[in-house]
Each structure stands twice: as structure tokens, then as C-alpha cells.
């Protein structure tokens, strides 16, 4: 359903959309059934002159089916949804497929710094490309990201990827994505982070191989001309983690 509103720009976007569809169909059925009974009873059992209501305690076995059937039905569909949800979760958050490249995302009040590995495809080398509020990635390549925060909680969210991960100061949180479309999509900060939270917009720009290579070439620092930069993990690490 979500794909009608927003492109599926990563490999797992379709899985998440299908999970949402599954939940919509299962709970939608029970929701409509419950509302149908609810409104049906209200219409059918309106007070009539001289007609007394029935006396039903709901305590005997036959009557208790009103409760036991929904009980087992809910349990059954819960299990179904849990299995589907955990499968998606495993795929997105608990497995890390082999990376083609790794980017570092450093968040602060109220801007994004993206550290791209540059021509040597390694982070923390002199040819790293640092950009602000613009993440450049190549279509159909698997990326790992290292998410860090300099100050408060932030959250790295790319709706078109169906990806979201909070950043915590003092920790490096790892995750992955694999873009499947070219184009530009919003990156949002989805954890309130102070006055500028509402303007913490960035874009992820997904390029095909040739365009991406051209961008890397055009933006990579000339290694010989630049003194080695300080390691990019100069984020205050403070805590033991």
C-alpha cells in the first residue's frame, strides 16, 4: 500500500510494505467484523415498548464462545503477524550482508555530515569525501552505515528506504541498505533534537555507477595536496560505549 505513496528505493522496502499489507488485511478483517456486529446489535436491539431485554450472564460454556473464539482467533493471527514481522526485522536490523562500501553518518544539532570513503573505498583515509546534508550513494550497491551523534539523540530516517535508526551520542550504531532506484529522496531526523529539529532535512542522492564515479572523482580531495585529515571519528566518544 505504501508503495502507492512513496517509491520503494531499497531492497527491503518491498518486504516492509508487504508486511504492512499483511497486517492491514488480517486486522482489517477482524476490525470490520467487530464493527459490523457492533453496529448490527445497536440497530437490532433498540428499545421497544413492552419488550424486555434478555437475561444472559455470559458465564456458561456456550455463551463463553463469544470470548473464547476471539481469544483463539486473535492468538492465531498474532502468531502469524509476529512471524512475518520478525522475518522482516531479522533481514533489516539483525543481518549485515557483505558491504560494497561503508559510509559514516555524523549527526549534530542541526546538520548531517556524511563521510564517503572516496576513491580508495576506505573510511578514515585522506581521500574521504565529507558532505553536509547530502548523501551520495550508488544504485544496487550494498552500503553499511556507521551512525554517530555529536550531542543529543537524533534519528536517521529515509522513508523511501523504509529505514530508520536512532543515533546515540557516545555510540556507533551500524546498519545497512541497498538502494534500488536512482534519484533524490528525503533524509529526515525523526527524534526531537531541539529548536532546529524541524529543519534537519537532508537528501540521499542515488546515482548510477557512471554518475557516482564521476561525482567521486570530482569531489575527492587531492590526496597529495592535503595533509592527512584527523580521523573522522573525532566525535566526542565520552561514554564507555
Amino acid at each position, binding site marked *: 500500500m505504501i508503495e502507492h505513496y512513496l517509491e520503494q528505493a531499497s531492497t527491503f522496502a518491498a518486504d516492509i510494505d508487504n508486511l504492512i499489507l499483511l497486517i492491514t488485511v488480517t486486522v482489517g478483517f477482524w*476490525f470490520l467484523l467487530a464493527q459490523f456486529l457492533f453496529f448490527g446489535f445497536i440497530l437490532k436491539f433498540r428499545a421497544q415498548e413492552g419488550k424486555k431485554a434478555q437475561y444472559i450472564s455470559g458465564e456458561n460454556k456456550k455463551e463463553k464462545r463469544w470470548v473464547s473464539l476471539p481469544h483463539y482467533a486473535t492468538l492465531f493471527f498474532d502468531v502469524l503477524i509476529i512471524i512475518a514481522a520478525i522475518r522482516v526485522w531479522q533481514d533489516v536490523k539483525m543481518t549485515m550482508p557483505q558491504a560494497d562500501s561503508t559510509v559514516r553518518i555524523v549527526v549534530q544539532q542541526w546538520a548531517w555530515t556524511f563521510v564517503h570513503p572516496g576513491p580508495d573505498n576506505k573510511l578514515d583515509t585522506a581521500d574521504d569525501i565529507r558532505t553536509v546534508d547530502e548523501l551520495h550513494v550508488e544504485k544496487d550497491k550494498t552500503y553499511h552505515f556507521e551512525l554517530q551523534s555529536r550531542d543529543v539523540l537524533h534519528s536517521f530516517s529515509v522513508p523511501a528506504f523504509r529505514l530508520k535508526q536512532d543515533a546515540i551520542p557516545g555510540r556507533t550504531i551500524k546498519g545497512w541498505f541497498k538502494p534500488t532506484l536512482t534519484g*533524490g529522496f528525503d533524509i529526515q531526523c525523526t527524534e526531537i533534537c531541539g529548536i532546529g529539529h524541524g529543519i534537519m532535512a537532508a537528501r540521499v542522492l542515488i546515482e548510477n555507477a557512471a554518475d557516482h564515479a564521476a561525482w567521486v572523482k570530482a569531489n575527492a580531495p587531492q590526496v597529495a595536496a592535503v595533509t592527512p585529515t584527523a580521523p573522522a571519528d573525532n566525535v566526542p566518544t565520552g561514554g564507555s560505549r
Partner: protein
Amino acid sequence: MSTATAEAGHGHSHDAHGHHDEGFIKKYFWSTDHKIIGFQYMFTGMFMALIGGFTVYAFRMQLAFPGMSVPGFGRVTAHDYNSLVTTHGSVMIFWVAMPVLIAALGNYLIPLMIGCDDMVFPRINRLSYQIFLLSAVVLIASFFVEGGAFGGAWTAYPPLSASAAYNLTPKGAPLWLIAVALEFVAFLLGGINFITTVMNSRAPGMKMFDVPIVVWMIIIASILFMASVGPLVAGAVMLLFDQTVGTGFFDPSRGGDPVLWQHLFWFFGHPEVYVVLLPAMGVVAEIITVFSRKKLFAYKTVLYTAIGTGVLSFFVWAHHQFVAGIDPRMANIFSVTTLLISIPVAEMVFVYIATLYGGSIRLTTPMLWALAFIGEFLIGGVTGIFLGSSGSDIYFHDTYFVIAHFHYTFFPIAFIGSFAAITYWFPKMFGKMMNETWGKVHFWGTIVSFNFIFIPLFFLGARGDHRRIYDYTHFPDLMRSGMQELRVLATLALIVLLAFQVIFLVNFFYSLVKGKKAEQNPWKANTLEWVAASPPPHGNFPELPTVYRGPYEYSHPEARDDYWPQNQPPATA
């Protein structure tokens, strides 16, 4: 304290006129009568709802018409916006839902419904309200201090909330925290009172399964509150130290852990949902039985599902934190527990629907509210599944889908439930009837506009609108065709909803003064509060009632009428 004593003394001087005739101040501001304390909570809650309503008006206007000068507020800056959403959330939960559903109803109803003359600790009860009032005053004061009101959201996640360098509200943040902590203290005192009263002061003959469901629900809610709030009170003190004396409990640069706060907060925060849900469910049980003239379907099942919900609610909190950086394996466990809680809640809803079967349903204003609760809460319930299942929560977390979901639970709880309770018990509370026609106008206006606010928000959330953003024009993907129109629709519906509340307030206060005089038992209900006069005097009952049966013996074949009051001896039936 000195002014309060002076006021009490002032009230005392009027006592010269008659031995039992207390002065106005003493009667309404320094009373230990559970009914007056209930009213104090109710009116304070209603006043705070005006603040909560005004803040949402201001920030929704900004969302619909970014940059406009909002009539009655002015231009909403980013700083204002954060303060407004924070205030809206905290006020509506801590200063509206809690005082009205738990404290006002608990105080007013428990002694009347279990047939005793007052709470067992009347002075603790008075203290509970006074601390609550103080907490409200502290919160309101925080709007006017240097730097303005706290804007770190009602969840107050550190490090943002812990340091003025980050949140830029050096005074607002500690005051907000102090207000919340005081509010917890007030409800702890109240909860002790409720539980003790029900355990000790039930009318002769009233067994545990003769206690009306709403009383049970308030008791279960009080126990949940008491068991869950402790860690958060400790957390609040730690956060206050971080803010004011430079400790680093939640500050990673000094060895602290910001995620710890999230655990402490949601360990309370999720049971809190059920703390306010259960009393509202109880109100609905009372009303649907009376107005369908039916015995409550499977009384014990309702009770056990409520207890089951309460117990399970302690094991679901981390579903608020799936993507917060917790160990991803934990999400699997909390997905399971979260979805399991749908079982008792679904059962409760089905029990209520089954209660309507074979009834003789009269659609009075309170009944409309009670039925609307069931219909609307179902939407809130089923949309929770999307968020409780970890895989789909990755996308929906912190979007407007979440906002729409929890407003479909909290609005039915805090407002539909409260309106149901107020319209139903108004005759008992004030001895006057509310106007039915205007009651129904208010009902339909509120329900229709409510759905027009929040259904658009489901769609906005599904399209990726994230929360607490004061201006979406910075996000190209969120300004696609139709999205701003949905935001405008929600805002317009909100204004309609707020306008309809004027009808309620006018009806409420007009009926209070000039309403038709209420009989002792206008709805022909069974429970003991209807045995007392309308309104009940100090001490409630002329002689304490004796109970012979359960609270829901409507349309019993052996009874003469279609109701059978709990205190009516069997011989006269």
C-alpha cells in the same frame, strides 16, 4: 500554608451560622469530603484541558498555514512549536486524563459505589489534590520563565532534556520535571487511598465480585500506577540532578547512558496507557449495561482480562524503542509481548459488544458516548498492531501514523470516556439533568470532527510525515500533491472540534445552575450511588446500604422491574 490556614480560618467564621454549615472556602477548597475532592480534580482537569486545547490549536494552525500569525497566539517560532507540542502532550495525559479518569472518578465514585461514607484517609486525599494543584501551578509557571516552556517532547529524552545547552530552556525544563514528579506523588497518595478504601470499606454483603467494574478498573489502574511509577520518579530525580547540579546519569560524555532514561520512562509510560484506559473501560461497562438493560456479559472475564492486560503491560515497554539503538534481539521479544496484549483487550471489546446482544438499547447522550468509545477505540487498537510488530514499526515509528494511532486510543479514553462519565453521573453529582438535545449536538459534532482530524493523519504518516516538525516545506517528499491539503483538513476539523466544546461547557454550566431537577435514580440503575440522594450530602447515605447481589442484574427474570438495585432485599422483588 499560611494563606491556606487563613482561608480555612475565614471559612470557619461562617460556621457560627449553623453547626454543619461550613463556609464556602472550607467547603470547596479545604474539604476532606471525597465528592468535593473529586470535583476539585474534575474542574482542574477541565481547566487544564483548555490549555491543552489551546496549544494544539496554535501548533496545528502553524502546520496547516506555515508562518502565519495565529489569531490569539501570534507567529509560532520553532521554539514555540516544540514547547507547544510538549505542553499539549504532558497536559493532556498528566493533567487531564489522569485527574479526570482516575482521581475525579475514583474519588467521587468509589465511596458511593461501594456504599460507604468517605475514603478511609480523607486528609491524605485532600493532600493529594493540593499536591496535584501545586504541580499544575508549577507547570503553568514554567510557561513564563526565562527561556520559555520546555520543548523536549513529553517523553523528555536526554541528553536534550538534561542540558540547557541543548534544549535552551534553562528554567522551563527543570520546572516541567518538578511538575511531573509532583503530579506522580499526588496520584500515589490518591491510589493508596482508593485501594485501601475498596479493601476495607465495602458495604455489608458486597463481595469482591459484587463490586462494580468501574471501581475494579480504577483499583487495578491504581495498582499499575503504583507499581510502574517508582522507577520513573527515581529517573526524574536523576534527570533533575543532571539538569541542575551537574551529574551525568544520562550524559554519555560523563559516563551516563541516555537510553536508560527511555527504559525508565516507558516502563512507566506504557502501563500508563492502561492506567487511563481501564477506568474508561469501566465507565463504558457501567453505561452500556444500564442503557441496554443487560447484565454485563461475563463479569469475571472482564475482570480477569483487565488484570491480564495490567500484568502484560509491564512487559511491552521497549516497543517504543525498537529503533532507539537497543539490542535488536530485544525487539523480537517485545514484539511478541506487545501483540499478545491484543488478546485480553480484544476480549474485553468483544465482551462489551456481546453485552449489547439481546438488549433494550436506549441511545441517551451517555450511551452514545459509551458506544462511541467502543467504535473509536477499536480503530486505536487495531492500528497498534502495525506499531507493535517490529518490522513495520521501522517505517511507522515517530510518524503521524503513531500520532493518529495513540489519539484513537487517548481521545476515546480522555475525552469520550470523560464525557460519557460526566453526562452519566451529572445528575448524581449536581442533582440536575443535563440538556439531552445539546448533549447530542455536542456528541455528533465532536465525534465527526474527531475522525476528520485523525484519519488524514494516518495517511500523512503512511506517506512519511515525521513528528514534531514545525514546517514541512523543508522536505520535498513531504510536500507532494495532496499532503498539505490533508494537513489543512486536519486543522480545520480540529477547529470545528474545539468549537463544539463550547456547547459542552455552556450545557454543563447552564445545567448546573438551571437544569431540570434530577431524581434520585434517573437512569434506573442498580449500583449503590443511585441509592443516595442527588446530590449526596456529606456522609452520602442516610443509613449505610446492605448489598444482596451483583451490580448488573438488569432484566432479571425474578425481578419485578427491569432493574434490581444492589441494596434491594430479595423479599421485595
